Structures are given as structure tokens and as C-alpha cells.
């Protein structure tokens, strides 16, 4: 929060000193989760985004941040206010698919640009794709498909798969199965927010599986991993980055060591932009960035690149500038598919301990230049 205020103060001081010669800054409204159980993700997205603005140094963007408390109706209300009363022309920041589904369709219908730094629900990538909706992270299925593809590489043949019983959970298992060639030893849907996984672990033990794929974001993943480590079941686990991102690892601890997880980014990804980003993030916030921070950082740079290239008032030109994606992503190559979701590589990371810190390390490439399966349903081209 402190940094936020200083940034705003700096921005306004700059605006005062440089006078009216510059165009008015574009107001970007960030609706994200800063309170409640999921606050860690929103905080990282915000911090990554603000770091990009700070490193850019220009005052082309006026950022307004607001907490949605992970409640859809709250997010809708904030979106209304940002558009109707604060003149926001670009919105971003939403962490969760259900909030995105509540906000995005009505926002894009009002000709406001939305850049997603995290959620990528399938309807928005397919039949409901929109020229004002840009996704700078991934389509929801993407990382799970990558996990499925890499499970083949690892030679898994009899995998037990598990996810919470809600749309993102069924998408995860569907995504994994789409690419996985082996057998399934079992398929379980758990309750959303479930904290005790003793029953599921018992079924895994009894199933005779040779490996596990699971999607349990947030606290659910921490609970599962810690209980799994105590269970005496010792099967390899493959997953998506969501339960093994940097904000979760300190709380999961050594129980997470060795887990494979799919992500389009990793802190040790070797490119100049990423090295600079990770160093600057550690310097500014005193912790290693998570995958969410990297997405916030990329979203900001994507928006900055378009603001520099085109006038926001000319929506067609501005959208074209966004579509060009003329910025250096910390994940390496980045381009938009016809549905304005990323075409990108997805890597496999493994949880390791480096100098006393539990973090992710790259171990391989799962899928290359991936375009999500819903792009075919999108009428844009």
C-alpha cells in the first residue's frame, strides 16, 4: 500500500512538473483480490503491475486499484464505478474465473478494454470472445493440457486425477485428459474449499496408481500436499502452477519438493527481461515473484506498449496496438491468437530447494506455440 501511495504521489508530481505538454494519462482500473483467503494472488498481480509502471518511468498510466474481496457482485459494482465515475478506459486485475465471467461481458459491451492478468474461462476464449477482451495470461485449460502432455513424456501410465467440483475443476480434468494417453486409475471431484483429504488419499493408496495429477488451487493445495507428505503414499505428482506458485510454497514447505507443475513462466527462465524482472521484484518487495506477479508485470507492459503506440480514444487503433503485443514478455515469445489469448510455450517446473528457499526450477518444455482449443469457436480472425 505504501509503495502504491508513493507511486501515485510521484506520478502526480511528475504530471504537475511536466505540465500540459503531455497527453492526459490513461486511467487503468485494477479490480483484484486484496482481502480474504485469496488475497495473496491479487497482491502479487498488483505488485507485479506496479513494478512495471515504476520501471517504465512514464506517467502514461494512472492506476486505480480496488479490492473485490473475491466477491462477484463487489467486482461488478467496482467495475461500474471505475467506468462511470472515474473514467477508466481499461480494466484489468481480476484473479478468478467466476468474477471474470461476471464483469467481462458487460464491460466489453460498453467498449471498455479488458486485459486479463490471470483468469481465462473457456466461454471468453471461444464463442463469447470479444474484440475488447485480451488475455495476457492463459486460457484456463492450457496449463492442465501441458501437464497431460508431459505426463506422457514422464511415462506415466496409470494416473489418479483429482480436482474440486466446480467449473475450473472440471475444466482442469478435461484439459489433462485431452492430452494424456495413459490410463486413469481413478477420477475424484472434491468439495470446493475442502481442507481434509484423508479420504481421497486413502482412495489413491488403494487404487494402485503410478502417479497423480491434481488441481487444487490456493489453500486446498497446501492442505493436500501436507497431508499427502504424512500419508506414506509416495507417488510422483504432476500439476499446474496454481498450487505451487511462489506465494504458496513457503506455506506448503518441503512437502512440495519434487512436484512437477506446468507454467508458462518460471523465476529461473533464462531471458534478459525476466532476469531484470526477478531482481527488481526481489529488490522492491523482498520476496521472489510468483507466476501471478509475472502475469501482472506482463499485463502492465502490454498496456504500456499499446498506450505508447496509439490513442486510447481511437479504439480500433488501440486494439490493433494491443493485438500486436509489441512488448518484451518475461515468459519469452508472446503473440495473440485470433481469440486474443496468448500463443505461447508452456514449461514444466519442479519444486526444489535453492539456498534455503523453496522455489521452482525449469525441467523441460511441455508444449510449444500452444493455441487453446477454444480459439476455433471464436468468430474473430
Amino acid at each position, binding site marked *: 500500500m505504501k509503495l502504491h501511495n508513493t507511486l501515485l504521489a510521484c506520478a502526480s508530481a511528475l504530471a504537475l512538473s511536466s505540465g500540459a505538454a503531455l497527453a492526459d494519462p490513461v486511467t487503468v482500473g485494477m479490480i483484484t483480490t486484496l*482481502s480474504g483467503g485469496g488475497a495473496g494472488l491479487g497482491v502479487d498481480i498488483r505488485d507485479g503491475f506496479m513494478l512495471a509502471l515504476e520501471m517504465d518511468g512514464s506517467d502514461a498510466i494512472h492506476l486505480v486499484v*480496488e479490492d473485490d474481496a473475491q466477491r462477484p457482485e463487489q467486482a461488478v459494482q467496482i467495475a461500474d*464505478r471505475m467506468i462511470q465515475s472515474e473514467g477508466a478506459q481499461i480494466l484489468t486485475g481480476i484473479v478468478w474465473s467466476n468474477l471474470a465471467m461476471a464483469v467481462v461481458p458487460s464491460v466489453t459491451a460498453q467498449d471498455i478494454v479488458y486485459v486479463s492478468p490471470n483468469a481465462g474461462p473457456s466461454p471468453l476464449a471461444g464463442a463469447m470472445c470479444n474484440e475488447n477482451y485480451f488475455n495476457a495470461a492463459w486460457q484456463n485449460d492450457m496449463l492442465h493440457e501441458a501437464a497431460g502432455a508431459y505426463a506422457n513424456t514422464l511415462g506415466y501410465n496409470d494416473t489418479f486425477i483429482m480436482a474440486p467440483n466446480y*467449473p475450473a475443476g472440471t475444466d482442469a480434468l478435461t484439459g489433462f485428459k485431452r492430452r494424456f494417453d495413459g490410463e486413469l486409475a481413478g477420477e475424484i471431484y472434491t468439495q*470446493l474449499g475442502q481442507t481434509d483429504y484423508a479420504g481421497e488419499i486413502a482412495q489413491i493408496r488403494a487404487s494402485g496408481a503410478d502417479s497423480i495429477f491434481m488441481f487444487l488451487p490456493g489453500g486446498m493445495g497446501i492442505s493436500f500436499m501436507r497431508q499427502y507428505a504424512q500419508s506414506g503414499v509416495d507417488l510422483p505428482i504432476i500439476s499446474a502452477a496454481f498450487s505451487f506458485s511462489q506465494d504458496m510454497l513457503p506455506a506448503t514447505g518441503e512437502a512440495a519438493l519434487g512436484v512437477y507443475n506446468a507454467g508458462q513462466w518460471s523465476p529461473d527462465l533464462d531471458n534478459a527481461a525476466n532476469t531484470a524482472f526477478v531482481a527488481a521484484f526481489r529488490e522492491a518487495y523482498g520476496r521472489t515473484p510468483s507466476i501471478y506477479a509475472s502475469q501482472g508485470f506482463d499485463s502492465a507492459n502490454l498496456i504500456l506498449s499499446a498506450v505508447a503506440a496509439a490513442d486510447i480514444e481511437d479504439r480500433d487503433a488501440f486494439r490493433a496496438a494491443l493485438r500486436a503485443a509489441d512488448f518484451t514478455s518475461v515468459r519469452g515469445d508472446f503473440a495473440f491468437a485470433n481469440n486474443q489469448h496468448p500463443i505461447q510455450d508452456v514449461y514444466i517446473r519442479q519444486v526444489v530447494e535453492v539456498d534455503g528457499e523453496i522455489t521452482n526450477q525449469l525441467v523441460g518444455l511441455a508444449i510449444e506455440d500452444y493455441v487453446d482449443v477454444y480459439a476455433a469457436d471464436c468468430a474473430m480472425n
Partner: protein
Amino acid sequence: MPDFTKEHALNAVIALGLLVVPLWAYFAGEIFTITLFTRITILALAGVGLNIALGLGGMVSFGHAVYFGAGGYAAGILAQHAFNGAPLLGLSGSNQMLVIWLVAMAVSGLLAAVIGAFSLRTSGIFFIMITLAFAQMFYYFAISWPAYGGEDGLPIYVRNQFPGLNTMRPLELFLICWGVLMAGLALFATLRASRFGAALMAIRQNPDRVASLGINPFGIKLAAFVISGMVTGLAGALMADLSRFASPAGMAWTMSGELIVIIILGGTGRLFGPVVGAAFLVGFEVFFGGLTEHWKLWLGVVLLAAVLFGRGGIVGLIAGRERFG
């Protein structure tokens, strides 16, 4: 009829103020203020519904979010079927608000009848916990049942229609909600002044005595509970149209808590209590939410102070103690 009291004057001021501010905002171009006031009127209507059970009947329902959420789903599901043309139980969907309101009230009334039939076998603290638990049951069900979006909720792409008005215009939507709120308040006042209301309030104070007069307390309480659920369900349908979205979050226990907060802050059992409470809650959230991430802590402090020191809520503070039984 009681004389024209301070509370009547206050009520008139609130009802007009609620109408005048958005009209001013319309001419001043402050669109968001209209949206905010629409939200206040809808939450107030949900509160008026709960006030029938809680304020008149003394039934502390900690699960009224279920009816609010169910009303929202009624709107969302009908609109979706109207949008994609798929039949719903052999009938077609609808994007007409008037039809949707009737369905929303029927569905939430039915739910209230079922939940009430179980919960009203008990009273006091049992009742609080049981209504909460049943609400939680439907909440979990809504999250995990995949047909209508589950946790993702159900977007309404085109706002439902009202004859003669354009609901996409914020002011016209507000006027609809204001009108419905006034109708809800009229219903509350009529109920309170009726023989039914008198019996309900008598049951709250002394159920045994009422039973000895040959009146069935269970039947009267259940009827009040169902009406209460229907009004809250109607508010849920309006809220779904305002946010163009129906979701299980509307059924969460925090929503039930907020409805109780709205009523007590405004003044339990007072006609305009929920309106004042809703205005305060939304205003507090907008104002303090902009100042600090930790606004909920301050909301907690205010609520605590209201319970410990501010008996009778805001309306009670301004208009003095209640004259009705």
C-alpha cells in the same frame, strides 16, 4: 391510525431523498451515483423481506441469502433459456421482468416453505443455526451443480425487459427498483397493521397465549416466513438484473449476515429501517473501501458499537422509540 409522528416525517424524507438524489445525479451526469442508489434500493428490499420474518415475527433467520440467491437464479435461468431458446421443463424462458419476478417469488416462496417447515419446529438459537445450515446446504449445491455455471455463476447478457421502459438506462432501471421497493414497504406496513400482523407480533411475545386463543402459531409463522422469503427473492431477481449476473455468492452466509446487519443498523421492525441500513452499509463500503484495505475491521467496530450502545438502530436514534407493539 396513529398520529403523524417524527418517524413518519423521517420516512417521507428518506423515500423522497432516495428518489431525488438519483434524479439529480442523472442531470449532473453522475451515472455511478444512480447505480449506487439502485443497489441501495435492492438491498433495502431484501431487508424489507427479512424484516417481515425478523422484525415482525422475531424469527432470526441467518439464511435469507438462500432466497436472495434463488431469486437471482430464477432471473438468470429464465433469461438464459430465453436467450438460447432451449426449453425449460417444457416451457420457454422469458426475458420479461414481470414474468421473472413472479417466478422468482414462487421459487423462493417454495424454498422458504420447505426450509421453514423444518426450521420452525424449533426456535431461538436452534432456529438461527438451522437456517444458517440449510442456507449453506443450498450454497454448496449451487456451487457444485454444473448445469447453470456452478461456481462461475450465470451471466445475463441482455438485461431483462420492462414494458414501456429501457432497462439498459440506469435511471429507468432505478425507477423500477424504487417502485418495487415502495410496493414492498407498503406490503410491510399493511401486514403490520393487519390482524395477521397483530397475531404474528403477539406470537413473538407470547406464543402459548396465542395458541390458547385457538390460533395456530406454526401456521402464522410459516406464512410470514414464506412471504418474507418471497420479497427477498424478488430483490434477488432485481439484483441479478442490476449486475447482469446470478451466482452462488449471493447465497453465501456472509450475505445472510449482511441482511441482518442492514436490518439491525437501520432499526429492527421499523418500516424504513432496512432502507436506512442498506444506505449506511453501501455508503460505508464505498467510502471506507476507498480509504483502506482493512475497511471491514472498521465496519466490525461500528457494528459492535451499534449493538452495545445504539439500541434501536439509526431510525430509533433519530425518531425515538417505536410506537407500535
